[in-house]
């Protein structure tokens, strides 16, 4: 049997790094439905999962794939799937089921040109609001946005850890450039990788209530087949997991599902700040465009302009408070996205009344450092 963690240096693409990150985190089940530019994740998992004692199944469509991920999670496995825009839309219903039944799982969206079939072989960042609100109802999710091949590995591990800790679907949002971009990664020794596993019941099977939360608002999770009574439904349910249509149960459940994330926002949110301390002009970016931004901020600093970069590592929960706190020192904010205006709305809300310049990019090419530098100069002049 081959190694689970392939410690060493590699020149590989983001999709490969994502697959290896999942395996390092302990993923044992992959539900596949191929789609450009995410197919290479499935390809890699199809080879690797059987080598490490896992299972890979290709499904009839993305609805089936996502349903299988939820089932594998109930059975106690770390489970994932990866897709792109059109498939992500099809998965939304069963993502809602995973949220409602608190099934830890990881969904990777390698984002291409959208909407609809869009531009399959071109890159975008078009699902940044869909990942937050794509399924119906009130809920919170966690989504991570890597900006390098190394970070795609690291954040896929992190995504599994967070999904296990909070019993929530966690999303890795990779722009299509990064998915197919080759770069060096270093995979550490297995013992250097932190792994989180879901909380198991300490009660006897007779005492166990599958949806009775501890003080941290997260219920311990028994595996299907371990002898614990585990009733699961997408209907609003009580602590036993039985459907309950009362106002009280709906109110309590929906609050808890959101609050288990909201209360931990400070622990969950991750950003990278470069030259932010004394910045008057702040560039906010994520994914590949954040690398152009880094270059532009460096150049602006060399010209004596007080520019800084705030790079999102978690897109959701959104770092609203961090931006609110910064807004008083800022003269201007520049937001970069490879879409026509999504997370920029969150930025505008947070930094009000600081003016926000939005630089959209549509159709493959990310922002060039010069374009961002020009925008920074305009804001400072």
């Amino acid at each position: 049997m081959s190694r689970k963690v392939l410690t060493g240096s590699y020149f590989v693409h983001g999709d490969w790094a994502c697959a290896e990150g999942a395996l390092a985190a302990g993923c044992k089940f992959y539900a596949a439905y191929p789609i450009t530019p995410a197919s290479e994740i499935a390809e890699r998992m199809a080879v690797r999962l059987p080598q490490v004692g896992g299972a890979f199944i290709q499904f009839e469509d993305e609805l089936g794939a996502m349903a299988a991920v939820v089932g594998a999670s109930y059975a106690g496995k770390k489970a994932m799937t990866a897709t792109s825009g059109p498939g992500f839309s099809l998965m939304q219903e069963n993502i809602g089921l995973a949220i409602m039944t608190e099934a830890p799982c990881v969904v990777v969206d390698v984002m291409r040109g959208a909407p609809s079939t869009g531009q399959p072989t071109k890159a975008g960042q078009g699902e940044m609001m869909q990942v937050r609100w794509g399924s119906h109802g009130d809920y919170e999710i966690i989504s991570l946005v890597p900006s390098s091949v190394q970070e795609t590995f690291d954040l896929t591990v992190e995504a599994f850890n967070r999904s296990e800790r909070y019993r929530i679907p966690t999303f890795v949002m990779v722009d299509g450039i990064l998915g197919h971009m080759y770069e060096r990664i270093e995979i550490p020794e297995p013992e250097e990788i932190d792994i989180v596993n879901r909380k198991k019941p300490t009660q006897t099977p007779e005492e166990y209530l599958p949806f009775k939360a501890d003080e941290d608002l997260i219920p311990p999770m028994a595996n299907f087949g371990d002898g614990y009574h585990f009733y699961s439904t997408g209907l609003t349910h009580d602590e036993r997991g039985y459907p309950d249509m009362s106002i009280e149960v709906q109110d309590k459940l929906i609050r808890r599902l959101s609050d288990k994330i909201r209360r931990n926002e400070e622990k969950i949110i991750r950003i990278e700040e470069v030259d932010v301390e004394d910045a008057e002009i702040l560039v906010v970016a994520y994914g590949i465009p954040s690398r152009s931004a880094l270059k532009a901020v460096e150049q602006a600093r060399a010209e004596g302009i007080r520019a800084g970069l705030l790079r999102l590592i978690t897109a959701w929960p959104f770092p609203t408070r961090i931006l609110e706190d910064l807004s008083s020192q800022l003269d201007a904010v520049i937001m970069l996205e490879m879409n026509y205006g999504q997370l920029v709305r969150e930025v505008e809300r947070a930094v009000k009344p600081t003016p926000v310049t939005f630089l959209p990019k549509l159709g493959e090419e990310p922002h060039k450092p010069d374009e961002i530098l020009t925008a920074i100069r305009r804001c400072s002049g």
Partner: protein
Amino acid sequence: MARYEVRIAGFGGQGVVTAGYVLGQSACLFDGKNATMTQSYGPEARGGACRSEAVISDTAIDFPKVVKPGLLVAMSQEAYLLYHEDVKEGGTIILDEDLVSPSEEKKNIKYYKIPATRTAEALGNRIVANVVMLGSVVSLTRMVSEEAMKKAVEARWPRFSELNLKALKKGMALGRQLLEKE
């Protein structure tokens, strides 16, 4: 070498993306530099416009794509016409002389004409035209070491290393011959 930007362009099926990958890998894993490789292609498996871009640098690479290539490798007329204007002053264009006829040659650009596909056919398989090109890239630009490129070719084609190493050697020799003529 602060930052070297390379664009390799042609049709799908010519090994354009693979060439970018092997170039990036040779720099990154065997020469100890930093490298990124990005790719752009259409929905067709073969025949559509296709390009790969490698950035090679001694320092960390922020922007991973090519802005102004220092080197363009053109494997089709269409690719040449589309990208030759982007090459920076003092830059280099290496082209497959049987597939590309340059319109006018600019003063500040070096042009090298390599019979890559013909050479590959003479070696027995036109599929290695991309490796012939890589060989000439190594001897004409010295962007990566010969040793690193050999290792990268062996790593990419463990089962077909003999043919590919032959193609690489031939490409290096073709490049050297052009340099001697200068």
